[in-house]
Structure formats: structure tokens, C-alpha cells
């Protein structure tokens, strides 16, 4: 399925999804609430069949006071790809977990909790992945500071 | 040509009535000789293992210390002696210290029974085979104690594996030995060697000998914990198995007894199946046998034992390791039934007198 058809098909499933600009993969902005239901349908719909959650990461848009979560889905059977983008509030970054749809999400979400501080509702085992249990702060956030920080060049 | 067996023990006995002090001196010299032999044998074996493994693996092995690395093992021994001797805080200190000694003692006690030549044997018991089997079982006690007393889960796992493995494979090894005992009609080691004057048991017994030899080699390799049966150590699985917590001198005791156990296995295999110090004889072909007798018996023993040792090293540097359940399956479901059948067949052979050069 090519990109416009794919977006149309997904928008049929989730009418309030809007297209995110400035990306090189077909990307849709979806609300956090219906994420699990949408992902389940994307995975199970025979025409879409996104069986692989290739990557998941979070971006800290500190100036807009939000985190953007990217879910990069791929369908090996059909050879098409789709990115879901979810925005969450920076003060209370809670999203539902995708663990029950894609088991790999358990680790990917732990990584983004560890480094970015995203909180995943109903995650079975939400704990730090790389850093120690008692680490303070979330290093990949733009306002993270410690004694060894480098300055970002302009 | 008849062979006159004269052991160290007998010589001491001869000396005793005349001059008791010379006898005591002779005993001390014998003890010294055994200790020196054990040390030297360890050095040679370790050097040989290094060189053999190196050439199997397209490399040179030790080359720097001494000519072609001859002194490397001595340098390593000095290093091991100088290392700190660590007993873990929560270990059972007494047993931790006792374990390598036990393991070493088992090996040392076997040494005195091995007939290396008609004149080089410390004691020639009339139950030699039984003695060797019994005393070599002492080594497993050292391994079990060492693994248990270290208070380390990896050590314990290694020790338990070793215990299960050695005790299981002892059954098969003993069954294989019994075949030769049946044919030779004696448990005395020198008697077994002399019974092979017209040919070695490995080929005189219509295949029973070869089967028994193969079983003995497999079970023996398992008993001395060498690849493909080195599960007790299993460095990729259990870090170092039962001797994870050992260092310095105590580790070297385990290490040395492991190598010398290989020598004991090879010596037993060559004594029982390959004629020991007996030169290669074929029936009553006097001319051929006479030519073979030109080489002294001690050299024959050395050559045969070295060949078996090379075979064991060859196993180690070619095969990967078995898994623990496959190891048990191999013993109880494959080796043991074959061993029993083989024993019955050879018993039949002995009863009917149906084997080569029976006379």
C-alpha cells in the first residue's frame, strides 16, 4: 500500500488522526487515549498487518512543553511502514502501554522511561533499564543537568 | 623370554632382615622418587598439552621462556606459588583447604600401583585393578568438597555435576576393566601385563577388547573431567566450576591432579589393553618378538601411554562439550547396556577359550 492510501486507510480507523509534516515516513498524529485500540487494529487488520514495532522513541520538545512519542511500525508481509506520533504533557507524561500488542514494547518503553521519564500506564515491569534504580532525573530530557554535562554548540 | 617382576616393595622386603636402616633409606628414596616423578610428569604433561593444543589451533604455543618455551611451565608454577591464597570469608575454611589435598592424594595413591616396567613399580598388589578403581574414586570427594565448601553457587553446580558424572561413568569404566580381568584371569596388574605376552587384549578378544577399550576411553575421559565431558569446569557455563574460588597453590593442586589423572588413565588403558610395558608380540613368532624385545619395557610403556595421552588431548581440542542431560543419557542408556553385553560376550569367549593365541 502506498503512503496516501495507507494514511487514508488508517484515518478510516481513527478519524481524528492528522498527518504530521516534516517527516520522511508516513506519520499520523493520534491521541494517547485510543492508542492501544488503534495499534491492535493496525496489527490485526489483514490489509495493514503491522506486525513489527521497529522502534519507539521519545522527543523532548521543551519549548512547546510536550513530549512527542514515535512508534515506528512496519509490515513485513506488505512491505509498508507507518509512524504513529503521540504528544503528551511534559508535566504529567502518561501514555498507555503497548506491551500487550507488541511484547517488544516492554523494553522499548522501559528505555524511554529510563532516559526520558515517560510513564506508561499498566506496564507490567516499569523500572530503569540502563541506569541504576536510584538514579535521579532523566538524562535525555533537555533540562537535565549534572556535573559532567557538555554544552550543546549553536 | 620370561619377565622377572621385582617391585620396590619387594626389594625393601629383601633388604629388611639384613640392614633395616638401608630399608628405611630405600623407602624414603622411593617416596622421593614418586614425588619427583609426579612433579616432572605434571610439567611434561602441561607443556605437551600447550604445544599440542597450539598446533591443533594453528599457533605456536609458548616460545619465549627457554628453548621453545620449555621453561614456561616452571615460570607459571612460580607465579602460582607467589599468588595470594584466598579463602572466601563465608567458605568452610577447613574443607576448603582439605579439598585439593584429597584430590591430589587420590591421584598420588594410584601412582604406586602402576607397573611402568618390570623393575619400576612401587607395589604390586594382587588386587591391583580393584585398588586403582577404588582409590581413584577418592578424587571426586575432593571435587565435591571443594565445590561445596566454596560457598558459591557456580562452584556447587560444578561439584554436583562432577559428582553425578564421575560416579555414573565409574560404572562403565569398571565394566570395561572387568572384561580384561576376565581374560587375564587375575586382578594383579603385573599379571595382566604378563598375560599379554602373546598379544594385546585390545585385539586378541574378537572385538570385545576394542569395544571395552572404547568404553574405557570414553568413560575415563568423563571421569577425569576433560572435554567433551568437562561439565564440572564448564568455563563458558559455570565460570570455572568447582574451582572458581580457588587461587594460587590450592588451584594448582587441582590443576596438577587433573593432568596426572590423565596420565593415570592413559597408563591404565595401556596396561590393560595395550600390553603395558610388554613389547608388541604376535603369538609365537619368535623372530618378530625378539626384534621387538630390543626396546626396553620402560620405553614401550612410555610410548603407549604417550599415544593414549595424545588421543585424549586430541579429543579435547576437537570436540565441544556435551550438555548435562545428554551426558547422563550417554552413560545410562548407551554405554552401560553396551558394557553389559560386552561383558557377557567376553565371558562366553573365556569359558569356551575362543580367542586368539589362547595358549
Amino acid at each position: 500500500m502506498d503512503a496516501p492510501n495507507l494514511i487514508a486507510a488508517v484515518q478510516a480507523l481513527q478519524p481524528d488522526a492528522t498527518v504530521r509534516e516534516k517527516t520522511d515516513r508516513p506519520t499520523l498524529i493520534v491521541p494517547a487515549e485510543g492508542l492501544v485500540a488503534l495499534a491492535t487494529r493496525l496489527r490485526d487488520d489483514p490489509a495493514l498487518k503491522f506486525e513489527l514495532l521497529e522502534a519507539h522513541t521519545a522527543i523532548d520538545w521543551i519549548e512547546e512543553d510536550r513530549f512527542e512519542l514515535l512508534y515506528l511500525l512496519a509490515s513485513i508481509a506488505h512491505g509498508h511502514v507507518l509512524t504513529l506520533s503521540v504528544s503528551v504533557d511534559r508535566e504529567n507524561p502518561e501514555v498507555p502501554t503497548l506491551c500487550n500488542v507488541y511484547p517488544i514494547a516492554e523494553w522499548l518503553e522501559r528505555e524511554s522511561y529510563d532516559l526520558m521519564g515517560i510513564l506508561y500506564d499498566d506496564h507490567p515491569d516499569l523500572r530503569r533499564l540502563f541506569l541504576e534504580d536510584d538514579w535521579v532525573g532523566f538524562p535525555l530530557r533537555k533540562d537535565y543537568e549534572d556535573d559532567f554535562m557538555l554544552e550543546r554548540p549553536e | 623370554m620370561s619377565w622377572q617382576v621385582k617391585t620396590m616393595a619387594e626389594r625393601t622386603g629383601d633388604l629388611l632382615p639384613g640392614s633395616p636402616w638401608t630399608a628405611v633409606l630405600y623407602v624414603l628414596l622411593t617416596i622421593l622418587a614418586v614425588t619427583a616423578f609426579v612433579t616432572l610428569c605434571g610439567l611434561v604433561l602441561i607443556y605437551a598439552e600447550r604445544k599440542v593444543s597450539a598446533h591443533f589451533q594453528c599457533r605456536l604455543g609458548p616460545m619465549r621462556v627457554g628453548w621453545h618455551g620449555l621453561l614456561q611451565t616452571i615460570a607459571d608454577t612460580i607465579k602460582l606459588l607467589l599468588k595470594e591464597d584466598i579463602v572466601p570469608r563465608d567458605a568452610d575454611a577447613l574443607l576448603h583447604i582439605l579439598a585439593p589435598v584429597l584430590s591430589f592424594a587420590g591421584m598420588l595413591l594410584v601412582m604406586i600401583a602402576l607397573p611402568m616396567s618390570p623393575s619400576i613399580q612401587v607395589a604390586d598388589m594382587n588386587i591391583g585393578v580393584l585398588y586403582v578403581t577404588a582409590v581413584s574414586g577418592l578424587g571426586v570427594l575432593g571435587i565435591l568438597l571443594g565445590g561445596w565448601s566454596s560457598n558459591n553457587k557456580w562452584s556447587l553446580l560444578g561439584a554436583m555435576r562432577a559428582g553425578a558424572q564421575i560416579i555414573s561413568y565409574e560404572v562403565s569404566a569398571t565394566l570395561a576393566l572387568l572384561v580384561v580381568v576376565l581374560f587375564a584371569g587375575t586382578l594383579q596388574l603385573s599379571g595382566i601385563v604378563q598375560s599379554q605376552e602373546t598379544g594385546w587384549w585390545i585385539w586378541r578378544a574378537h572385538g570385545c577388547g576394542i569395544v571395552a577399550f572404547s568404553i574405557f576411553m570414553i568413560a575415563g575421559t568423563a571421569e577425569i573431567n576433560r572435554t567433551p565431558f568437562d561439565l564440572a569446569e564448564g568455563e563458558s557455563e559455570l565460570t570455572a566450576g568447582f574451582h572458581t574460588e580457588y587461587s594460587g597453590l590450592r588451584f594448582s593442586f587441582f590443576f596438577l591432579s587433573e593432568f596426572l589423572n590423565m596420565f593415570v588413565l592413559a597408563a591404565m588403558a595401556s596396561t590393560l589393553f595395550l600390553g603395558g610395558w610388554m613389547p608388541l608380540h604376535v603369538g609365537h613368532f619368535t623372530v618378530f618378538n625378539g626384534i621387538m624385545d630390543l626396546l626396553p619395557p620402560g620405553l614401550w610403556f612410555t610410548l603407549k601411554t604417550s599415544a593414549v595421552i595424545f588421543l585424549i588431548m586430541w579429543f579435547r581440542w576437537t570436540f565441544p562439550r556435551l550438555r548435562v542431560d545428554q551426558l547422563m543419557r550417554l552413560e545410562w542408556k548407551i554405554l552401560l547396556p553396551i558394557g553389559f553385553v560386552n561383558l557377557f560376550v567376553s565371558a562366553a569367549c573365556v569359558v569356551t577359550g575362543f580367542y586368539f593365541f589362547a595358549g
Partner: protein
Amino acid sequence: MSVNVSTLQARISGESTASSPLSTEEYFVNMGPQHPSTHGVLRLVLRLDGETVRDVVPVLGYIHRGIEKMGEHGNYRQFVHLVDRMDYLAALSNNWAVTMVVEKAAKMETTDRIQAIRTLVCELQRIQSHQLWWGVFGMDLGGFTPFFYGLRDREQLCDIFEKTIGARLTMNYIQPGGVMYDIHPDFVKDVKTFLAYFKSKLPEYDTLMSENVIIQERLRGIGKLSAERALALGATGPVLRASGVAHDLRKSEPYGLYSQVDFDVPVGTTGDCWDRYWVRMEEMRQSIRIVEQLIDNIPEGKTFMVKPAAKIKVPAGVHYSHMETPRGVLGVVLVSDGKESPYRIHCRTPNFNNLWCIGEMATGGRIGDLVAMLSSIDLVIPDIDR
């Protein structure tokens, strides 16, 4: 719905799952961070029942260096050299993955010569990486000799790389806009010598390991992963292909010159350790085929399209591109705000996802099986921890 943040302690002090009458008291063992067969500093907390593995909890982060955070503090060219330190056995592939996303986003032109060189060195590195894996695999199964055989042949490739690139491990060779240097004049001759040599040595690999009955016994039926589970667990590369999914980005989304060469994608059937072993062995042969087709046809042209000191600016937006490294799909998410350094950069590394399968595979096996499974995944720990 609730967010429940837990700790490692809570995770491993779970209830006993022992059920059979033979089950004894369960206990925990730390495998690693210093353990001979975790190939680095991976720690696995094992819940054992005797020798049987009941649960595996991987604990990561012992070599976490924050490469993603460091990437935000340098320019794109500097990031290329950071990713050398991720999957250090396939440094060229890592270089190329970053280069690819930067070139795609900044719309930089390349020549056929650049692409041919990149394809060639990456395929050679695939062989090199699999050689080392093969040796280490043998060592993990308890045979030492394969390790030396593997390293002996790997050395030849190291020398070829050293001549052209100047490095043997961390290459930093493939750069946005080209390659660091043109190939060495001897490159073509050396590679041909190597191919002739290696083709004569591959049968040796088979006689030593593949045809060994102990290897077959140890690998067949161990660590099975069905195609559905492998996909759900995010596995890629040989691990996924061994499960029967012919997913290879070199075929499905050809980059470099892969569209011009002829090669097969080896696929397994049951997804056990043997299939993973076989797939990698076959991949070495396919890589030889690819190199043979390309080595005589390196086109002429420039090897660097921009000045090495030129500043690279990437238009604002989210860019993603992925490629097939020896271990699986390496993807790079590049978020740019139009400046000289990335706003956020994320690497989707193959080992991270592949390691996640170990929990599914290992449960119920023995410790010896676990070692074989770990090795059949072909882990490089810095690639997981980043």
C-alpha cells in the same frame, strides 16, 4: 490504569514457580556482569531449579555511555565516529546507517563508486563479523579450537581493512558525502586473494563444527522461536530469518548497490539454535557471492562529494532510515531543528531487540542451553547499552 514503577529487587523476589514433584528449592544466580560467555558486561539474573532455567532477567546498562545524548552535543560527522563504539564488530555498517540518514535528510549526492566501496566493505565486514561469531560460538559450546580458526581467517580481513582504512576495529570510514579515503591500490588484489583463501577454509568450518554430532545434538530443537513470536518480540536479522521470515533490507529496500547484485536470503524453518547457526554460515557464502560480483566492477568516480570540513545542515523534521547489519536492522531516528547538530538522535539497535527474545527462548532449558542460545543470538553488548 495505573503507573507502577518497580525495582530489580521487586522483580527477582517473585514467588516460586516450582511445580513438579522433582522440583527443589529455587535459587537465583547472577550470570555476569563478569562471565565468560556473556561477551562483555551483560548481567543475567537466573532463577534456577537445579540446572533448569525458570526465568531470565537481563540487567543492562553496565556499558551505557549515553551515545544518544553525546550525539546531541556534536555535529553529524562526529556522531559517525561515536557509533563505531556501538556494534564494534560491524563498525562500517553503523557508520553507513548514520551516513544514510544524514545523506537522505540533507539530500546529498553520491557516486556509484562511493556506493560500490560501501557495499563491498560492508559485505566484507559481514563475513568478518560472522567469522568471529562462529569462533566464539564454538568456544561457548566448549570447543576452543574454532575460536582460533575463526580469528585466523578474520585476521586476513583486518589486514585488508587496515590497508585501506587505517583501522582494524573502529573504522569511522563511511562519512556523509562519501568515504574517508579511496581504496588502497592493492585492495582488489587482496580481496581476491582472501576470497580464494576463505573459500578453501569454509569446508574446514563445516568439518570442525557443522558436521559434529555433539554440535547437532546441542543445537537442534533448542531455543525455538516461531515466526510470529520472533516478529512480536522485535527480532531482526539472522534471528528472524532463522524463524522463517525472509526479511532482509538488502532485498526489500535495497540500498547501496545491493539492487545490482544477485544473492539469496537464507531462511530457516524451525527457528532453533541450529537454524540460526545455519543461516549465518550460509550468509557468509552469500556475502562471498556479493563481493565476487562487485570486486571487478568498481566504477570510476569521486570518493568524496563535499569537502571534509564542510558543515552539514539537515532540514528540520524527523528522519528515519535503516539498514541490515550482520546482526539485524539498525535504524537511526534523526530529529533535526535545522542546526548543525541533531536535536535528538535515537538508534534502533538490532542486539537490543534480539536480546529480548532470550526470556522467551531460555525458560525451561538448561544452563548449557542458555549459553548456546545467547551465543546463537550473536550479542554485542555495547550495541545494546549504547
